């Protein structure tokens, strides 16, 4: 990985205190990025921020409409702008996983609120900052963490799979519409990882067969570079 590519990059990551989100926070922080992360649990946020000095922890819930602009305000304020937004926060829906026919409508709505509507709202609230970065010749990118459940119809993964399929399509339409303004949008599937979420979905999976979140985070950042979604910083280019 070209670590210098991330130096000074202003990145916000939702769901940043566990699993893949925490691995991305650590990897980007280590690579010299300015990182703000969002998570629901205030104590977890404080602990993660204390463990990674220089990162900015923001307590908030992307599924709540009232939290979105408060989160966006703190992201823009603490980073002084935004270059890369990573929608990583996610919910499985009901656990243990249920057949769709047994899934309550409210459970589906809750999954959509976290996995689809929240990311939509947060992107919208941060679009001013992202497009300002694009006009300055900086990176301007929204990364949506997706899943193979967005493509393959796995039984019992209805709420999650449908929400991720919608998120993946949302990412593609954002890219169609925002590309002319210099803002890019992409969805990536990190693969099956050894995370608390995976344990909740498949409690008896053998962790040895699963990808480590740190490896998945590294692959994701390499992919962003390979796809030329991370621009060299103007200062570095000069």
């Amino acid at each position: 990985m070209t670590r210098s590519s991330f130096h000074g990059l202003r990145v916000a990551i939702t769901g940043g205190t566990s699993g893949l989100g925490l691995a991305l926070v650590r990897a980007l922080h280590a690579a010299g990025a300015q990182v703000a992360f969002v998570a629901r649990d205030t104590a977890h946020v404080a602990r993660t921020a204390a463990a990674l000095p220089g990162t900015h922890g923001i307590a908030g819930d992307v599924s709540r409409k009232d939290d979105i602009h408060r989160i966006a305000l703190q992201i823009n304020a603490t980073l002084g702008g935004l270059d890369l937004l990573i929608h990583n926060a996610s919910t499985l829906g009901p656990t243990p996983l249920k057949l769709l026919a047994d899934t309550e409508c409210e459970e589906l709505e809750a999954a959509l609120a976290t996995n689809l509507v929240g990311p939509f709202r947060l992107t919208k609230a941060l679009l001013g900052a992202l497009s300002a970065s694009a006009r300055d010749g900086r990176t301007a990118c929204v990364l949506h963490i997706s899943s193979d459940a967005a493509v393959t119809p796995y039984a019992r993964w209805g709420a999650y799979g449908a929400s991720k399929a919608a998120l993946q399509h949302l990412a593609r339409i954002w890219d169609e519409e925002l590309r002319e303004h210099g803002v890019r949008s992409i969805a990536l599937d990190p693969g099956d990882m050894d995370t608390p979420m995976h344990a909740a979905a498949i409690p008896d999976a053998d962790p040895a067969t699963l990808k480590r979140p740190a490896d998945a985070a590294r692959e994701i950042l390499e992919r962003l570079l390979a796809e030329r979604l991370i621009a060299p910083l103007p200062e570095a280019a000069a």
Partner: protein
Amino acid sequence: MKPAQHPVQRPRDAKLLVVDEQGRLAHARRAQLADFFAPGDLVIANDAATLPASLHGVHARSGQALEVRLAGRHSLRVDDVRAFSAIAFGAGDHRTRTEDRTAPPALRAGDSLQLGPLHATVLRTLGHPRLIELRFEGEIDAIWAGLARHGKPIQYAHVREPLALWDVWTPVAALPVAFEPPSAGFVLDWSLLQALRERGIGFATLTHAAGISSTGDAALDARLPFDEPYHIPASTVRAIERTRAAGGQVIAVGTTVTRALEHAAAGGRVPRAGDGIADQRIGAHTRLQVVDALLSGTHEPGSSHHELLRAFMPDDVLSRIDDALEQQGYLTHEFGDSVLVRDLFTPAGAGAGRDPPRTRGTVTRGLSLECAH
């Protein structure tokens, strides 16, 4: 003029009054806005997001309730979030007209204010018992979190519903540094930005800490606008240079953009990039150097925003505009209708480096052109 009472940024029936180079007035629908710009023009907006700058709390020494409205800051730096100037009000909220609000408890240097989760100290009064400088205590990230959670957007009695942040952020809002919304930018949406791009019209932004527009106190209002820090990106300056070279016009969205660009130009034709603090007043005496046209909300005579319009046109044209806005039922204030005015003192072609006038046929096409004289 009647104030717009509903917090809708882009009402379908919003109106646009256009003043052309000859000072003629035309009424249009605001949805037609893009038709009034020509290829090669450059539209510049203020991308400041609006702070939830109204903070309710308690004055520790007296135990009395108060509201402080943050009103000024020394710079836009993200870590410069401790010291603010602020205007204090007594108990009550925005549903009472600011003119009728009770006075705050007497404020002295060293007084503690508990504003929700935020703890602040009064540093001094600034020549008026209600205008103070305060300092927030604590870590920078905690101050931002406290503002985000506890603060409410400043609003006035003419909008009854409590405003949420999404009501006062323009579609291009980025850094949260404005104390009141740069509301001329409410006209923008991404469809308009796409239309501009398709027609070869440039779009750029600057960030300007738009200040409080009114305090309800005549002595304080006379001191408005306060000094306002701004930042102009290098990319915006380059866009202005390209526009100048091609003979296009620079259209400022809002009075804050005008103030920042003219301040940064310091008498030259192109502003310098970077940070500055706009401390000048723009009015009848000002000769505009950068801005060729202004897209703005409608403003009532007597306000500092209205005074700024005198830099664009002689008083007789301005009073015709005031009359037309009144007669045609234009709405005023943040969520009201819009005006697009040209700089009538510097006719195209007359300014140094400015290209000959072009035929701007799009200006009147399809409109009910109304000459108000």
